[in-house]
């Protein structure tokens, strides 16, 4: 069980990731706001409580890995990494600028702490499977985590990897699906519905759980349960809200990639600050 103190710490960490992501995207006036906001809590749990990483030695061989398969949520990951000390917070303001180390989609060669290059949807899960397989061969204690989008689960390659890793029983692989029900063109339900994800993955031989993806305590408990399922690959379906906590994005249908005004962002940051007061 998460102590009350730790729970509070994770909520605060999530709040800070959300704020830094808003400022980071705010500097540009556009970006993948929806899918960044919906994974803030899982990032807080991973980088605040679960993952063994060393900001001073990002390439440490026994570290846990994260493959952000939905690579377009890079800005949220960068905020988490900066807050964990992988690079200075000021660097977040260089997002997408020519020559930056923070490109729109996650890039292992550019950003300290990023473990895999992603952006072409469907490939990150397979790469995570490869990492987990390789680390298992070495008898490594490391875990490999990966975050998929729900729209991404329409990619055929996802189901190749789900079949393979279900059969391989990779106890060191823990997958999150950001099930925010929305994709670029609208609602998943209207475009190409996914059905019951947990049930589908279970049928492929995975240890599968459903949790509230904005409840850090619930995510943390689910990770512990997944870690304990030693003979199985694990998936945690995060029920989330796309755009969560960003007043101009949350609840909007077309919030995958948005343009916004400075006033909208100022309002969003004011709302975010107000939200922060409730955490105290």
């Amino acid at each position, binding site marked *: 069980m998460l102590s009350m103190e730790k729970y509070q710490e994770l909520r605060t960490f999530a709040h800070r990731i959300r704020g830094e992501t808003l400022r980071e995207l705010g500097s540009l006036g556009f970006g993948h706001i929806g899918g960044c906001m919906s994974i803030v809590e899982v990032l807080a749990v991973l980088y605040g409580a679960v993952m063994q990483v060393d900001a001073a030695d990002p390439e440490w*061989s026994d570290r846990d*890995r994260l*493959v952000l398969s939905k690579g377009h949520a890079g800005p949220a990951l960068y905020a988490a990494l900066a807050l964990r000390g992988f690079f200075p917070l000021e660097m977040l303001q260089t997002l997408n600028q020519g020559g930056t180390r923070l490109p729109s989609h996650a*890039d*292992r*060669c550019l950003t300290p702490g990023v*473990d*895999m*290059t992603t*952006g*072409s949807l*469907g*490939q*990150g*899960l*397979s*790469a*995570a*499977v*490869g*990492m*987990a*397989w*390789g*680390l298992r*061969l*070495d008898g*490594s204690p490391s875990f490999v985590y990966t975050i998929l989008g729900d729209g991404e689960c329409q990619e*055929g*390659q996802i189901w*190749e*990897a789900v*079949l*393979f890793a279900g059969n391989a029983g990779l106890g060191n692989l823990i997958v999150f699906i950001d099930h925010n029900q929305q994709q670029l063109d609208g609602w998943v339900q209207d475009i190409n519905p996914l059905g019951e994800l947990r049930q589908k993955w279970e049928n492929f031989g995975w240890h599968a759980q459903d949790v509230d993806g904005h409840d850090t305590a619930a995510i943390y408990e689910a990770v512990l349960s997944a870690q304990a399922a030693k003979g199985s690959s694990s998936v945690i379906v995060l029920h989330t809200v796309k755009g969560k906590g960003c007043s101009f994005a949350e609840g909007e249908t077309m919030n995958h990639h948005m343009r916004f005004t400075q006033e909208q962002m100022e309002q969003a940051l004011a709302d975010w600050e107000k939200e922060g007061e409730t955490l105290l």
Partner: protein
Amino acid sequence: MMRDVYLGCLTERMEEDPRVLVLGADLMHSDGTATLQDIFPRRVVNVGVQEAHMVSMAAGLAAVGKIPLAHTFACFHARRSLDQAYISAAYARLPVKLIGTDPGITAAFNGATHMPLEDMGIMRSVPEMIVVEPTDPELLRSLLPQIIYASQPVYMRLYRKEVPAVHPVGTEAVLGRGIVLRDGSDASILASGLMVAEALAAAHALRQQGLQVRVVDMFTLKPLDRRLVYQCAVETGAIVTAENHSVINGLGAAVAETLADLMPVPLERVGVQDRFGEVGSPDFLMQRFHMTAGDIVGAVRRVLGRKRRLT
């Protein structure tokens, strides 16, 4: 059999280096890697019929320090899982080794759907990808360690069956450098793969007609040995390329680019002329696509005519 040479060299590497892993996609009895499963059960993986997953998974393995060799038919590497090779491996700077079997017309009885006439050209367009086609057993033996330990991703064409031996025993080849197999001053034939033996036969026939034709094995398409191309242009003044591949974006195209950049001389390109593959025996297909020694002789005669008109 090239396959046996490959498996022998690979086994040696795997015995010496536990990082070397083999992945296959339900063709392991075709390329012979199934036999490695018995020797290295933990390091040989058959993912089933899922090439895209295999290539990205190989990238993940490389990211944790392994040296994965991913095997499938050449056509699938180049067509089905190209984005995985491009993004998961090459762009991510993960030195995955892609081994594509049954290149060009050697897909023979599998026919057009399985016949890669564009794989080298496609892979050549991927930044930093090394693209290589070992010609015969000696070259394969010499090149395989260089391929396995290359710090960049590699696409290697692998012939499974018997191929004519053109290099003497003990040849030490260097990735990225062509090998002059026969010297001559009238023209140069720059050839790769199956076409090297045809080029040698053509040079022999032309010798009977009083012509001295140089034959070069250009087994690395990328990085191309531009210095050698330049040298051949300067020293012989006429070039013929010969490849078991489309002339579009393959060896002929790469040589044409190099000549245009450095030293334009008359060029003729022997290979498949912008068409799909067909089913049939390799001999039938070589005739069909005008890829025989006789076709090379014709190309040399044409290129010499153009050379004469220039001088």
